[in-house]
């Protein structure tokens, strides 16, 4: 074993990211690491690369326990990685970025001729079209990703970690990358490969380790014994997670929100959708399909270049969230709870009341704490938010309870339409079910919901109808029968149909 992870655990405030996870990596293998969003893959990668330190457990390199205090140590030990986040210096040239770890010097001065020559060598294996002298900030997203990969390869490490390296590159470039990875494998390099795309994993991996909710669902299973279905069920867990929600009574005659032939400056084309009173409309698609961006565009985050957005059968243009809430009673629950959903340093009470402060203001525009508490309490009870008090700082709650707080504020605001973006990422199974039931309940009370999710079981369990998005278009509609097998097959069929049409489209 070149690298062994022994029951590693890691906690962040409010969430146990990794719980006794193990993995072993042999020289000359491509080892797939799979799991849903929030399963802990990136955390594991960050521990191996020295960015995080485990709370418990061991990391062994060639049988010797190692402790990486920083990425420097990991690089020094021969580990290189392509991370999910962009890790390039925008104002530096492509070549200098590729050789940033160890710039060649001559007489103490950086030798740019050698940089360009060496960088060229690595780039040529992937894409001949990128100039090593170009500033990185002038490249496209796909080109930047290629540079990231070339940078990781150039370290000629014995262990290579690739966290979704194909997320933004073309199929052509993916093919080139795979040829290269296979060659490295023959040379004895050990590769950990993280991807959401099953096809890729089956095409290239020798073994697979699956994480689910921060735990091992499978450790180093040979791919030869693996089937698609088996892998998927390992990733998403037991089928019975699909809770049957109570009946809903959507009023299909009452269209509350409608997009007609909508195109946006973000690249959406010809979007048609209709949301009915009391309905949960699912918006399914893989990462990068343009779902969250569509939500943003509806809420004024991007320009609508053609087509029409209608609320209650009247054309509208929403400028920003302030207008969306105050004029149209539209709410948005962001997928990025920490950055956009909550104000972590403020209390539960303030986080829920933020949408209704203007309404709470009484004599002379003053708000009393008691009044605020009275307004907020029913929702804390209804959503069963577990908090010692309303004054508790939200940052100290668990992930699930945080998410409930971010839902509660829109209930308090009496929103009529809710756009919910990946509501259960990184949340434990019990709370996940709670939130699903809650969404069903809200819809029964007459709120119309657009549910954005890449969690297939969640989609099948919760949505009434499912619109499938791909490449910033809506490519199909599935009437949800709440049966996982048939519904998921129908959804995947929509995506495969377009993928077959456009063989060169970016994943």
């Amino acid at each position, binding site marked *: 074993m070149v690298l062994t992870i022994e029951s590693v655990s890691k906690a962040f405030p409010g969430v146990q990211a990794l719980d006794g996870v193990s993995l072993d990596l042999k020289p000359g293998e491509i080892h797939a690491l799979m799991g849903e969003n929030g399963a802990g893959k990136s955390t594991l990668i960050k521990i191996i*690369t020295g*960015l995080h330190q485990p709370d418990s457990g061991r990391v062994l390199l060639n049988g010797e326990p190692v402790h990486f205090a*920083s*990425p*420097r140590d990991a*690089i*020094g030990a021969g580990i290189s*990685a392509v*991370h999910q*986040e*962009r*890790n*390039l*210096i*925008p*104002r*530096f040239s492509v070549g*200098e970025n590729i050789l*940033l*770890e160890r*710039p060649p*010097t001559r007489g*103490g*001065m*950086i030798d740019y001729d050698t940089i360009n020559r060496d960088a060229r060598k690595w780039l040529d294996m992937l894409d001949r079209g990128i100039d090593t002298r170009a*500033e990185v*900030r*002038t490249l496209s997203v796909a080109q930047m990703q290629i540079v990231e990969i070339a940078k990781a390869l150039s370290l000629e490490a014995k262990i290579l970690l690739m966290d979704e390296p194909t997320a933004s590159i073309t199929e052509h470039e993916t093919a080139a990358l795979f040829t290269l990875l296979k060659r490295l494998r023959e040379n004895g390099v050990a590769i950990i490969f993280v991807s959401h795309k099953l096809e890729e994993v089956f095409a290239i991996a020798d073994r697979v380790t699956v994480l689910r909710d921060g735990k091992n669902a499978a450790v180093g299973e040979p791919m030869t014994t693996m089937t698609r279905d088996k892998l998927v069920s390992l990733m998403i867990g037991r089928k019975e997670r699909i809770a049957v929600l109570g009946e809903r009574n959507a009023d299909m005659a009452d269209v509350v929100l409608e997009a007609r032939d909508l195109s946006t400056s973000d690249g959406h084309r010809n979007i048609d959708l209709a949301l009915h009173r009391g309905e949960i409309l699912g918006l399914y698609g893989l990462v990068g399909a343009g779902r969250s961006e569509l939500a943003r565009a509806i809420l004024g985050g991007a320009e609508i270049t053609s087509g029409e957005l209608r609320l209650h059968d009247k054309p509208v243009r929403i400028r920003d969230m302030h207008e969306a809430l105050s004029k149209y009673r539209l709410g948005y629950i962001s997928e990025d709870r920490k950055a956009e959903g909550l104000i972590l340093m403020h209390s539960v009470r303030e986080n829920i009341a933020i949408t209704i402060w203007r309404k709470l203001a009484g004599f002379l525009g003053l708000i009393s704490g008691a009044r605020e508490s009275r307004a907020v309490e029913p929702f804390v009870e209804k959503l069963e938010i577990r908090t010692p008090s309303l004054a508790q700082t939200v940052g100290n709650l668990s992930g699930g309870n945080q998410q409930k707080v971010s839902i509660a504020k829109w209930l308090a605001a009496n929103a009529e339409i809710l756009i919910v973006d990946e509501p259960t990422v990184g949340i434990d199974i019990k709370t996940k079910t709670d939130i699903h039931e809650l969404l069903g309940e809200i819809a029964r009370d007459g709120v119309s919901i657009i549910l954005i999710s890449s969690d297939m079981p969640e989609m099948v369990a919760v949505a009434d109808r499912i619109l499938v998005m791909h490449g910033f278009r809506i490519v199909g509609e599935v009437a949800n029968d709440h049966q996982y097998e048939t519904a998921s097959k129908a959804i995947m069929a929509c995506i495969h149909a377009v993928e077959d049409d456009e063989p060169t489209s970016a994943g």
Partner: protein
Amino acid sequence: MPFLRRLLIVEWSGLAVAIVLGSVLLAVLTPNFMTEYNIYVMLRSFCVGLLVGFAQMVTLGVGQMNISVGAIGGLVAISFGGMMEALGVPLVLAVPLAIAIGALCGLINGVLTARTGINGFIITLATASAFTGINLGITEAIPFYNMPAALVAFGDERFFAFPYLLIAPIIVTALLMLFFARTVPGRQLLAVGGNPHAADLSGISRERTIVLAHVLSGGLAAIAAVLAVAQLGSAQPSIGADWLLLSFAAPIIGGAALTGGYVSVVGTTLAVILIALIENGMVLANVDPYWVQFLLGALILAAVWLNRWRAVKTGTD
């Protein structure tokens, strides 16, 4: 218009044009402008300003700021003067000691910000006050007047319009250009400023790089202080008191990225030339000196606005 677009991308092109136009205008309007003596005066006043701008530029490059540039300057100036007048330290020894004191002040700034992760603004605001306090406490605001003749001569004499004082900034400029373009620490400094997270992952020590930037900043401020003492012929405790605005104006007008990761040695130099030109023009035209204050503020705002506009225009935000 590809030529115009290329000009847009080179941050300092506008500055070069402004300097040429301004010089021509001044030469035509005021007969005194093109005299040997006036050019000497202008070049001489440019020396200290340039180093002050550089002192701030290196901290901007790493994504930090240094409010204490002027305070370090003042402290170094009086230490420099004091050690020569009161302690009789010879000039050749006093200069490196003075620069070392500046670097030490920078080291304090750097270690405090990098180790604690506290906003560099508040740390250097506090140390600025402390450095100024030591300065005033020691001198009680009384200057050291007896400077070595060699130093005064260096600050005063000239070869035609070329002041000897200018030698120091020319050397420093060349070294800084080399530092940022071709040396590993220089590139690492800009890498940390450009994307600290990426620099971490590439094994560059963020802490050490930030400390290095502050040490350099302190050292450059110290050189500025030594030049100021040479220029004035005495070590005034008030040296540096009015450097704050200039220190930011020069690199920012010169095109430095406010968020760090990009600085322009040439741009900063041109910006200081432009500022010297404006000041000189004001004096020649007998305009209220208060206009300089006003124009400097306006110039910074214009530069900031121009940078935004350029970023939008060229799509390289």
